[in-house]
């Protein structure tokens, strides 16, 4: 019994490693596209941070505002990577035609999705860090008190919730092969708009502020801003809501994905086309 359980765990871990390994192969094979997308993200973030430069304010205030906008831009990019990679669980496999082989393989779906999430977080952190360094250097931003370790810790804890929500959006291409992927971007945008991506949540209408309390990005943005601008450590007031949302969103994400997979199997959508 114990030996069988150990063999199953080993099998699942090998499979999880396979998912991460495959994504790494794809990054290597599409390296020029990766560079192109990185440049696009840089350009996008620049357009946001330049807003701070256009405001007539003392240099210190301008520096603070630019850093605040940069953090928002980086979190936007990071979340985009997480959702995109998780959505590729279905969309890329369908496009390549490998979806049937992958979904008939004896790897549990939670481990499959967790492997995608693990790679998404690792890759997202590298890309987001590079973006942060490039844009901060471009504007010569000063962050003398920044506590980057606390910021990374908050991002890591928030990522559990992001993966859970990403699992829910990952199923959309199974239900709508044509438009499902784009719906993931809508979810990303909606989450960030209520979470105060470039502004404080206080400026939102009351009903949006209520929604903000259940968005993990709200606590991630608030905590990361405090860590980088004020040098505070990871605050429990930000950590515990992230843990609670993560504990709810991951099982919910798995349930939604499983329901979507059953729908696809019922209607014959778990295949290359249609």
């Amino acid at each position, binding site marked *: 019994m114990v030996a069988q359980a150990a063999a199953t765990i080993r*099998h699942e871990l*090998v499979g999880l490693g396979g998912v991460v390994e495959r994504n790494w192969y794809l990054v290597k094979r599409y390296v020029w596209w990766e560079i192109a997308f990185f440049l696009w993200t840089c350009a996008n973030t620049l357009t946001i941070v330049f807003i701070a430069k256009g405001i007539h304010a003392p240099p210190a205030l301008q520096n603070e505002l630019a850093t605040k906008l940069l953090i928002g831009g980086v979190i936007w990019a990071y979340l985009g990577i997480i959702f995109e990679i998780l959505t590729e669980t279905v969309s890329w496999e369908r496009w*390549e035609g490998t979806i049937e082989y992958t979904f008939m*393989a004896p790897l549990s779906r939670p481990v499959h999705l967790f492997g995608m999430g693990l790679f998404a977080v690792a890759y997202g952190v590298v890309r987001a860090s590079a973006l942060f360094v490039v844009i901060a250097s471009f504007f010569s931003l000063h962050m003398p008190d920044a506590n980057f370790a606390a910021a990374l810790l908050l991002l890591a804890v928030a990522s559990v919730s992001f993966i859970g929500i990403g699992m829910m959006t990952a199923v959309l291409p199974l239900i709508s092969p044509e438009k499902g992927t784009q719906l993931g971007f809508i979810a990303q945008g909606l989450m960030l708009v209520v979470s105060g991506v470039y502004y404080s949540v206080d400026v939102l209408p009351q009903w949006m502020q209520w929604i903000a309390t259940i968005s993990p990005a709200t606590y991630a943005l608030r905590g990361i801003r405090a860590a980088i601008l004020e040098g505070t450590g990871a605050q429990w007031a930000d950590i515990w809501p992230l843990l609670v949302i993560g504990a709810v969103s991951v099982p919910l994400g798995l349930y939604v994905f499983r329901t979507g997979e059953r729908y696809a199997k019922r209607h014959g959508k778990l295949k290359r086309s249609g």
Partner: protein
Amino acid sequence: MYAVEVHNLRKEFVRREKGVRTRRRVAIKDISFTIERGECVAILGQNGSGKSTLVRLLSTLLLHDGGEARVFGHDAFKETRAVRRLVNRVSVEASFFKKMSAAENLAYAARFYGMTPRQTRREIPVILERVGFPSDRRGEAMEHLSRGMQQKVALARALLTSPVLLLLDEPTTGLDPRSKLEVQDFIREMRALHDATILLCTHDMAEAEALADRVGLLDRGELLFLEPVDDVKDRFGVDTLEEAFFAATGRTFEDETEEDKDREVFA
């Protein structure tokens, strides 16, 4: 215990048209058959006859609407994990990550079956050599390989996981004659050396006759017969499977109606 046991299996597809109205099409109509362990069974049928639907049902990629299907005693719809360990397939489309190499694609597929990097480093060159794939090209992107080469890698992918039930869905369609013969030889080898049970779905009657112990005819979702080739010919008093098809359906094998084309799109 049978390798495959199917009783009154039924699958319908429902499509929504113009937003509201739904259209229902029966892809598999209450079919029953069994396959013995180590046997090779060919299912013949036109496009849209339900062959691929049958393969996808046994691959755990579809949910059924009635009846049951068992693979080595395991329920194909409830014990999916157990079934997935036993089954692999080769389809008409080789289907790989085009930018990744043959070795990378095979490693990815093998990990899902629990094969470690050390195992795949050892096994992949051996298996590629066995299917006649030049070992010096295993690092080349799949998009640079010919269709025949890609299909050899697809066979290697199936073999790598040592399946006891191999589902072949038009594995030689679109291949040149030489590649076709190589694939057929490989299927024989799989059976002889690995005791694999094979379900071959094809519309190539000569291939079915050459490889299978028994041949079945799936027509518009109905299994009209499943017997040894000689018994089929005797039953209809004909010399070829083409004539048997005509005798059983009243149509020639090449004769596809609008209904058949519609069925293909539907499924």
